[in-house]
């Protein structure tokens, strides 16, 4: 039964990685921008939730709800005032500006919160578990996976059922023509990054409640998110969930063999997929 337990824990962990990846996937899908500061923005959101929860005495879930509009505003402004200037055919400016941003956020957080490990407490919910048949499943991991699925369903609805989603798709296909139809691409991009930051806030809630975090762990989250996106195939949010689950299962199996191999096993699974299916498991976009 041990292996079944390992697989289920892996799937649940995959939900967290899918949450990390959904925001990255959204921004890339709409404006072909890879944000190297994505992981650091998740950590920033986790600190924001921590501060809101401790200063205002809020329940972390409520704190996350309060953090969402704040993070939306941060994302909107970041895109509108900074990242929009870097978009173009040259890949250097967006990469180097977001890399610089990553270093700035990390060191800003280090200055503000020191390098101590933190954790957002959810009052006993961390240790609660449900018995499903012979296997015990943690409530928080289960909530994480459920949130990941909800986020992906929500984003897909937004994309294909709303006028904002139509504007996203039109701008993604051809910003100039979309502009002729009365869409302002710069504002559309800013809104997209804002929405990505709302997803980042949800990811941050689970990052901060499930394990310790400190200002330096952002880049590793970026890497997991990136691996999930590539494994799933560019442009497919359900693929991203599958990619997250592949990494999650590989990590829990690696850890089951030797705790030191957890992270390495996830990376090796990614390289293996890259070797046999360079365009990912469920490719859709042609990039």
């Amino acid at each position: 039964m041990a292996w079944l337990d390992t697989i289920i824990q892996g799937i649940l962990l995959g939900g967290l990685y899918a949450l990390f990846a959904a925001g990255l996937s959204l921004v890339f899908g709409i404006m072909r921008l890879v944000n190297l500061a994505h992981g650091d923005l998740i950590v920033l959101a986790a600190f924001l939730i921590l501060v809101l929860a401790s200063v205002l005495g809020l329940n972390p879930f409520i704190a996350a709800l309060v953090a969402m509009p704040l993070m939306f505003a941060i994302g909107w402004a970041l895109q509108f005032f900074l990242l929009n200037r870097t978009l173009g055919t040259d890949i250097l400016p967006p990469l180097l500006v977001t890399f610089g941003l990553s270093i700035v956020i990390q060191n800003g957080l280090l200055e503000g919160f020191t390098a101590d490990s933190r954790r957002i407490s959810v009052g006993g919910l961390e240790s609660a578990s449900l018995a499903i048949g012979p296997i015990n499943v943690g409530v928080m991991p289960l909530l994480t996976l459920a949130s990941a699925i909800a986020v992906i369903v929500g984003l897909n609805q937004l994309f294909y059922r709303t006028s904002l989603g139509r504007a996203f798709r039109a701008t993604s296909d051809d910003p100039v023509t979309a502009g002729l139809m009365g869409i302002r691409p710069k504002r559309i991009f800013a809104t997209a990054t804002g929405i990505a930051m709302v997803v980042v806030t949800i990811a941050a809630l689970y990052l901060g409640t499930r394990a310790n975090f400190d200002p330096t762990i952002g880049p590793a989250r970026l890497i997991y998110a990136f691996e999930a996106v590539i494994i799933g195939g560019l442009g497919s949010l359900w693929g991203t969930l599958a990619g997250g689950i592949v990494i999650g299962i590989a990590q829990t199996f690696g850890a089951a063999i030797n705790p030191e191999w957890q992270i390495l096993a996830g990376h090796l699974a990614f390289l293996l997929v890259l070797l046999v299916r360079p365009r990912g498991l469920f490719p859709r976009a042609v990039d």
Partner: protein
Amino acid sequence: MTYVTIPHWKVETRTKASATFAIVAALLILLAFAAPLFASRSVLQDLFFILTMLVLAQNWNLLAGYAGLVSVGQQAFIGFGAYAMFALVILAGLDPLIAILLAGIASALLAIPTAFFLFRLQGAYFAIGSWVIAEVVRLALAQWKALGGGTGTSLPREATRDMPALKLVGGLFGVKSSEAGDILTYWLALLLAIATIGLVYRLLRSKQGLGLAAVRDNQEAARSVGVDARRMKTLVYLAAAFGTGLAGALIYVQKARISPDAAFSVVDWTAYVIFIVVIGGIGTIEGPIVGVIVFYILQTLLADYGSWYLLILGLIGIVIMLFAPRGLWGLFAERTGIQLFPVRRRLTGGPVPLAKKGGPHG
């Protein structure tokens, strides 16, 4: 008698400024080699740091600025080169100097399988992919118990002290082995920096360099005239891995203590290097030279402020990338038109009168 003129054009890259600079550079190099005669140990150590960072910056600039391969995972080759050197010295008992060279080759060999994976990813994905590779190499080497596993290990004192080259330098200057070590590593760093700049300059002036620039500016157009873009990029990637691995091994001969977290540090080996190149000016040979000087000055001024230092460096990098994407050197060159390492081909000469045996039938 008629004067017949035939065109006498010449393709040149040399300019007046670059010819003058070549003489100045030669004098500077002589002075730099003589530095151990008059400079103190701490000055030599600072120069060692500047020179090795310059080597890393030139290698990264070659990748990102010329081949369009934006890597944030070059620490893979620093760490691998350093670990290869440690393994060759500790486990195989080789002389550290030979180990440095072999470590460079080992890094280039590592680059063959990593290129195979990475070249499946384009643009920004190449960047993060290179980071994944660096993480894999770090995690794998942290499992190597003979070299200290996750906590790392030190070079045995006798391995460095008994180097024949060190005794030679020690005898030459009449100094103890630790001081002779600083002189030797400084000279090696100087040699490596000169060789790197020389080879990069030579590459850029060659036919291959022209192909590389064409690929960077428009891959499809370059391919249509017969430039093998993939081959060029792979060669640059392998060469940069060799140079970075050499520098990594040399840095860790001087440090004499290694751990996976330090040898594969993104901040030390990639963030600093990227900021050096961006601040100085990406896509020029002069850029990293200017950048490393600015970087050293900033570090000296701001070293006491801890994470504020990196924060400021990051902000400067962002501002430069947005408002002066060609860096400080780019601003200077734009105003003055001066190029110290010109690679642009210009037509010079022109019609030359032929006086005596002129004429097509003459």
